[in-house]
C-alpha cells in the first residue's frame, strides 16, 4: 500500500513519517507541494509535522492553499484516508477538511513532552484497532484545539493533564465520515522501541491496512 507523504517548504517530519510507514509495512512516496496530483497508486496520505512556510500568517494557512492540497481534498472526498500530524493537523483545519482550529498553547510556549492519550472514538478506520492509553510525544507551539466538541468527531483526548490547553482535552479529531483525521501528538515518533514507545504504530498501520 502506498502512502503519499506531502512535503512543503519548512516540513520537518516527512522522513520520520516515511520511515514509520515502512516500519508498518507500507511504501512511502513523496508528494511535493507544487504537484497538482498525488503519486500514482496513492492509497493514503500523511501531511507531516513541521513549520510549513515558516508558520507565516498562521500555522498551516499558506500550505492549505498550495496546489497539492487540491489533490488531497479530492482524495479525501473520494473516501481516501488522510492523516495530518501536528502542522499537518493545522493544515487540515485551515483547509476546512477538519473542524475547529489550533490556537497558541495555553502556556504561550513550545511544549515538547511525552503524553498519554485515550481513544475517544474507536469507530474510525484510524482508531478501530487502537487500545488506549497511548504514550506518544507532543511537540508544538500552537496545538490547543479549539472548537465545539459536541459537534466535532473527537477521536483522541489527553489523559490526565491537558498539556496544551485544548478545549475538552482534545488531542485529535476526524471528519464525519472518519476518513480524515488530525492529531497534535506524533505517532510517527513512537514506532521504534529504541526511542521508548511503539504506541504510535497502530495509527500508522491503519494507513497501510488491507
Amino acid at each position: 500500500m502506498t502512502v503519499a507523504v506531502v512535503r512543503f517548504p519548512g516540513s520537518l517530519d516527512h522522513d520520520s513519517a516515511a520511515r514509520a510507514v515502512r516500519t508498518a509495512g507500507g511504501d512511502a512516496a513523496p508528494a511535493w507541494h507544487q504537484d497538482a496530483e498525488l503519486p500514482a497508486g496513492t492509497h493514503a496520505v500523511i501531511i507531516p509535522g513541521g513549520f510549513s512556510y515558516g508558520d507565516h500568517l498562521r500555522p498551516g494557512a499558506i500550505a492549505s492553499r498550495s496546489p497539492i492540497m487540491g489533490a488531497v481534498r479530492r482524495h479525501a472526498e473520494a473516501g481516501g484516508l488522510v492523516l495530518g500530524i501536528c502542522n499537518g493537523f493545522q493544515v487540515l483545519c485551515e483547509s476546512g477538511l477538519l473542524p475547529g482550529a489550533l490556537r497558541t498553547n495555553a502556556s504561550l510556549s513550545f511544549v515538547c513532552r511525552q503524553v498519554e492519550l485515550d481513544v475517544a472514538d474507536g469507530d474510525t478506520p484510524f482508531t478501530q484497532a487502537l487500545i488506549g492509553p497511548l504514550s506518544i510525544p507532543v511537540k508544538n507551539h500552537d496545538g490547543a484545539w479549539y472548537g465545539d466538541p459536541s459537534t466535532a468527531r473527537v477521536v483522541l483526548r489527553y489523559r490526565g493533564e491537558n498539556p496544551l490547553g485544548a478545549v475538552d482535552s482534545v488531542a485529535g479529531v476526524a471528519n464525519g465520515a472518519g476518513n480524515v483525521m488530525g492529531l497534535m501528538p506524533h505517532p510517527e515518533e513512537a514506532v521504534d522501541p529504541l526511542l521508548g514507545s511503539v504506541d504510535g504504530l497502530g495509527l500508522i498501520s491503519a494507513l497501510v491496512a488491507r
Partner: protein
Amino acid sequence: MSEAPLHRQLGLTDAENDRIPELIGRPPTDPELVMFSLMWSEHCSYKHSKPLLRRFPTDGPRVVQGPGENAGAVDVGDGWAVALKVESHNHPSAVEPFEGAATGVGGIVRDILALGARPIALLDSLRFGTLDSARSRHLFTRAVDGIGHYGNCIGVPTVGGEVLFDDRYEDSCLVNAMCVGMVRTDGMLKAAARTPGNHLVLIGNRTGRDGIGGASVLASAELSEDDADKRPSVQVSDPFTERKLMDCCLELAAAGAFAALQDLGAAGLTSAASEMAAKGGVGLLIELDRIPLREQDMAPAEILVSESQERMLAEVTEARLAEVLAVCERWELLATVIGTVTDTGNFTAVHRGETVVDIPASALTDDAPVYGVPVDPAPAAAPLDLDAVPAPADLSAAWLELLARPTIASKRWVYERYDHLVGANTVRRPGGDAAVVRLPGMDRAIAITTDCAERHCESDPLGGGMATVLEAARNLACTGARPMAATDCLNFGNPEKGATGWRLQQVIEGMSQALEALRVPVVSGNVSLYNESPGRVIYPTPVVGMIGLLEDAGASVGHAFQEAGDTVLLIGGGTPRLDASEWLGRAEGAPPVPDIAAEVALVDFLAGAAEAGLLRSAHDVSGGGIAVTLAESAIAGGIGCEVNVPPGRRADEDLFGEGGGRVVATCRPGDLARLRELAGGVPMAAIGTVGGSTVTARVGERDATVPVARARDAHEGALRAALA
C-alpha cells in the same frame, strides 16, 4: 567634540593601522580599512589566543577534519563522519537575548552545513546571573525562547546542554551553541576556492544593514552601560529560510554540485570570501552591484561586512551552474552569481564601475596581528576552612534546599521548550548525563555533552581545565559511550589585563593534559574574550563539547534507577570537598587536583561495563555531590534507595561535596561479581539497594532522608517558581 580617527573608531590600534599600508603598498580605501578592522578583530583573528591554542591535541586516528575549517569531523565508520563545533554568541545575547541566541543557533548550524554535513543535534551551554535579578530573568527566558524559536523551526533536535546561574554572569551572560552533523567522508566540502574562472554564488537571504560590525563592536570589547545603542548591531533571525537553505545545500552537496562551500558569519562576505580565497591560494572578484540588498543605498563597506543571516557562498563550475540555480529556485531561495574566482590572489570588489577593494586576501587572514598576552599568575587559592562553613543542622532539609537551587534543579522548564525529538533518533533525552542520538541509518549512536567546571577554574585554572574535560568524558561514559572528539569554546574576560591571560594558558594546559590522556582530539573551537564589565569579570568558562561513540545504540545506559533490589554502587575515587562547590555557592577554596589516570581508567571501565550489559543505570557525581546524584536517579526512576555514604570529615561534605571522578551506578545483584572482575584497579563499593519511596543516605551516625515525591517537586518545580 573631536572625532577619533576612523581606524580607532573601528577598533584598530595605531600600530595595526600603520601595518596595513606596509602590507598592501598604499593607504587603504575606507571599505578596505573597515574590512581589516573586522578581520583583525579578536573575534575573527584570535589575535590574543592563537599562540595558546596550539597547545591542544588535535590529531588522532579518527580525525578527518581538524581545526581550521568551519567545523571539525571524526570518522564513525562505514564511510560516515560526524562533524562538531561549539561557538559563542555572548555579546549579542546580552544586548538582545532573543535574536542573539537565535542567530547563535543559526550560525553554528551553517558552520556544520558548510562541510556538507546534515545537522543532527544541537546543545546549548548557558550562563546567566542569579534569578533574583529581574534583568537576568529577562535575559535567560528570552535567550531560551530565541534558541527554541530557531532550533524548533529548522528541525534540528536540541538534545542537551547545561545552565549555571551565578552573579559573576550578571553583566556578561554566556550563550554557547554546539551543533553536530553527519556527512559522507568522501563528500565532505571545504571552504577553499579551487579554480579560477569558477562562479561565486551567494545563496539565501538578502543583504541588509543588520549585524554590521557585530564581530568587532560587540565581541571584541567590554560591554558598557550604553549598550542599548549597539542593538542595531545584532542580527535578525529567519529560521524558515535557514531550513530551506539546509534542504537546498544538502541536496546540492549530495549531488556534488559545489566546488567549495562557506557560510557567512562574523564579518559577513568579507570573512567568507577572504578565507575562501586565502585557503585556496586564489583571488576573487566580487561585483557588489549584483548582491541582492534589502536597502538600495547601502555603501560598499556595509555590503561587504553585513552580518545578515541565512546566507551561504558557493564556488560553482560553469558546468554545474544551471543546476545549482534551478535547485535554489525550487527551494524558493535567492541564488545570485556575484563574482568569479581569479588567479590574482586578491580580494577585489567592484561597485558601480569602480574598484573599491583590491587587496591580497591573505593580508586579511594570514597577516592578522598576533599578540602575546600577559601571563601573570594569580596567587594559588588556599583550601577552604571547613570550620568557617556552617554545618546544616538538618541534612534532609539541606538536601531538599540544594535540589531546588536553580543551577541544580531540573532543567525541564528549559528543554520542554525545545523540540528534542525531531528526526526520530533521540535515544536518551535531555535530563541525563549526556544525550544519546542514533546516527541516522546506522545501528551506532553518539553520546553528546557540554560541560564546564567554571568555579574550579576560578580557584585553580589548571585543575579546573582538567576537571572540565574529565567531567565531559565521565558523562559520556555513564551512557556507555567511548569519548571520541571534542570542541571547545573558551569564554574569558579581557586578556589584556589582570590574570586572565594566565588563567587562559593554565586552563588550556589542564584541558590538554586530560585530553591527551583520554586520547580525545580537539577538532574545532572558538574563543570569546572581553566577557567583563567595569565591576565584574566572568569565571574562566572553557565550555567543552564532547562526543562519544556507542557501537550499539540499544546498549546505552540511562541515569534512572530501574528496579527494586538492584545494587547501588559507588565507582571511582577521590575525596569529596566543599571547596568551590554548588553547596558553598561560590568559587572559594581549592578543589583537589583531579587524578587524570584514575579518571581515564574509570571511563574505560564504565564503557566496558555498559558494552557487557552489566549496568542498569549510571550517573555522574557532580554539582551538589552524591546527594543530588542519588536523588536525580531516584526521581528519574520513580523509585528510592537506601545507601551508606562513606564518611569523611563532616556529613554535609560527604553528601554535598564535589570533586574526584565518581559515579553512582546500579546493577543486578547477580552481576556484581562480574563487575568487580572487570573493574580491576578502579575503586568500586556496593553502598546500598534500590527500592522504596524515599532516598535515604546514612553517613556514619547521621541519616538524611527525602521522599522521592518531595524531591521531585523540589527539583522540577524550582526553575518554574524562580521565573514566575
